[in-house]
């Protein structure tokens, strides 16, 4: 068994890729992966931005959660997946939870940074023109923190992609995890690599799309 069978030439990967991409199994796997990813990310966004904002604005919340968030943002979340499996069972719920945990902490942290360094004089301006708390939050704080929040989301998305793959790999009976398992067990290296390429491309595309938004925000945040 030579290196060439583990790393087949790119031409044969691409040839196989077209059949893999249109196979029913693949489409089904992608569907499940996208669904769990989207669900986990949505939760991570809501909780991440919400908690991040709370931590920035409320001292007690910051004191209670600060240390934990900082621990978890760099902790190896994969180690928690077996525990999640025990709690949530071997299925989509565990993958959603994995995506969530991979993504949420960096979003919390960046949102907190963004909002706590949001321009104080803009908040004061809002108050002077009669803004209520809700308006201060939605019309000033969130927008003022947008560059940091977007950076957090981009990092969160990349981690979330990792989460969806690792979650499914560890469970290995659903989604792309099942496919990876199948391909490597039967030594279908062309199929294996075309799947890798698809996952990489997906992560890259998403992160580039968010980076594009970031650049637009930077553009008119200009002289901040």
């Amino acid at each position: 068994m030579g290196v060439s069978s583990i790393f087949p030439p790119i031409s044969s990967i691409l040839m196989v890729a077209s059949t893999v991409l249109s196979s029913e199994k693949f489409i089904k796997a992608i569907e499940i992966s996208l669904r769990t990813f989207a669900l986990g990310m949505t939760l991570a966004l809501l909780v991440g931005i919400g908690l991040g904002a709370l931590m920035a604005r409320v001292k007690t919340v910051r004191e209670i959660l600060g240390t934990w968030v900082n621990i978890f943002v760099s902790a190896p979340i994969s180690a928690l997946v077996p525990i999640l499996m025990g709690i949530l069972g071997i299925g989509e719920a565990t993958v959603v939870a994995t995506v969530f945990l991979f993504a949420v902490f960096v979003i919390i942290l960046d949102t907190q940074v963004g909002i706590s360094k949001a321009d104080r004089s803009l908040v004061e301006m809002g108050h002077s023109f009669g803004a209520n708390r809700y308006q201060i939050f939605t019309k000033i704080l969130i927008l003022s923190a947008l560059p940091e929040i977007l950076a957090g989301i981009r990092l969160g998305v990349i981690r979330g992609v990792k989460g969806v793959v690792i979650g499914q790999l560890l469970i290995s009976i659903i989604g792309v995890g099942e496919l990876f398992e199948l391909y490597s067990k039967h030594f279908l290296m062309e199929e294996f690599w075309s799947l890798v390429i698809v996952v990489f491309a997906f992560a890259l595309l998403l992160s580039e799309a968010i980076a594009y938004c970031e650049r637009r925000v930077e553009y008119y945040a200009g002289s901040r």
Partner: protein
Amino acid sequence: MSADSIVKLKDIGKIYDTGVEALKDVNFEFPVGKLSTLLGPSGCGKTTLLKIIGGLIDATSGEVWVNGKPISGPGPDRAFVFQDFALMPWATILRNVAFGLELRGVPKDERLDIARKYIKEVGLEGFESNYPHQLSGGMRQRVGLARALTVDADIILMDEPFSSVDEQTRRKFQEDMLDLLQNRRKTVIFVTHRIEEAAYLSDLIVLLSARPGSVSQVIKPDIDHSGKCPDEIRRDKNYLDIIDNIWRELKVYLC
């Protein structure tokens, strides 16, 4: 409260959490429809006092009365112009100017129309869809002034609005501001530490003592702006005397 005063300060004192006593026993009545200046040495509590009048910070003691009622926070009767402009970098000039109305829930078309009108009046027509960072400091402060005018408050509070603007721009802006305010019977409370600016613009100068600030003297420059060109006024004997007088008063705190 006398009939022609609109803002009344009763025994205002302010001690910050840090223990700094910024203001002590400030008593004053600002006349309606006039431009009054708060003038005093650096750190004497001018900004603090203006923010207390604006309802942005609470006094430690005493009360602020506006239109015959004690205030408990910001209100539609007062609009602020900020030293650092406080413009939202992500919003166009048009949206920035309309922001006070947006917060009050004025329908979009209506508030944008009003904003356009004031953008024109402060001389920024054509910049509606620009962003703040594309404008010079002087132009940004015009945006701040336009925003304060849109909400049609009786009282306009300005904290050193010209401090980050170069000398030529400042003079032009001062003239334009006087023009804009003249016909509107706005009451303006204006903070500055520049003596000439105070003497030139004000109907009334309130001299504050060094920290803890309190009213040390009230001066009525009584300069006739009508029919004279600005440079003529700046050579006027009365104007120069006033500057001299204020300077002597303030020197006490500097030496």
